[in-house]
């Protein structure tokens, strides 16, 4: 059921012309994915998905869409060769991959809610085995914050511009 919501939301994201409708369908996709994670037993990931993705990132997107007053996008004509060759090629590739995946991993199944995905275990793993990557991520976040502030500030106020 969550999977069908995911699929519908993703198709809707492609079909909508207005970016705010795309953003709302992306939120639906993310909420449905959080449900999937919960079914897979990954409670921590589900919570982080809702808070970070559906909360923070999508609020950022909607803010920028409203700030820039984005309207309908104008369609451009794609090349006909791309459509003629690309759509059948994509269908063939997708069907082939789907057939292979279904054929070769059909017997293994994932028990719903059986994984010990307790936040305590994840914290043990995160702060012992993955401590160095975790610290590097904090530096990455810091650099990203500074970069965002510098990029989004007004050009007159930005340091280092002499023109």
């Amino acid at each position: 059921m969550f999977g069908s919501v995911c699929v519908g939301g993703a198709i809707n994201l492609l079909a909508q012309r207005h970016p705010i409708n795309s953003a709302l369908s992306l939120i639906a996709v993310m909420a449905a994915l959080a449900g999937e994670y919960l079914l897979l037993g990954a409670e921590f990931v589900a919570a982080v998905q809702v808070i970070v993705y559906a909360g923070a990132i999508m609020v950022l997107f909607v803010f920028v869409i409203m700030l820039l007053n984005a309207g309908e996008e104008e369609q451009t004509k794609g090349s006909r060769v791309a459509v003629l060759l690309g759509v059948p090629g994509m269908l063939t590739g997708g069907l082939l991959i789907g057939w292979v995946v279904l054929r070769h991993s059909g017997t293994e199944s994932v028990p719903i809610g059986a994984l010990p995905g307790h936040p305590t275990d994840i914290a043990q793993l995160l702060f012992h085995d993955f401590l160095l990557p975790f610290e590097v991520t904090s530096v990455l976040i810091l650099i990203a914050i500074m970069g965002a502030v510098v990029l989004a500030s007004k050009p007159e106020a930005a340091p280092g511009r002499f023109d």
Partner: protein
Amino acid sequence: MVPSYVPLSYYLLLSGFLFACGVVGFLIKRNIITIFMSIELMLNGVNLSFVAFAAHWHALAGQVFVFFVMVVAAAEAAVGLAIIISVYRTRETLNVDQVNLLKL
């Protein structure tokens, strides 16, 4: 309640479908914000297969990797949206076809 079982391949197919939708959106969309959302959709598809494999192999490291992917996606979204704002300020457009010069 009897625990029900879902084949791993279903999760992989859903994840692949989400990734494919992201790729198609990235290629056919002309609005730069929608292109950015397609990238997020691709990251979400990858995350789903991470979690499905983590549940399948009973390895929690997959979930930690999902955490890292989310952190990188958040940083990327912040920087990318800042770039979009500054591009819009100088070009007055969001259409990627009209942004064809690195320097005005």
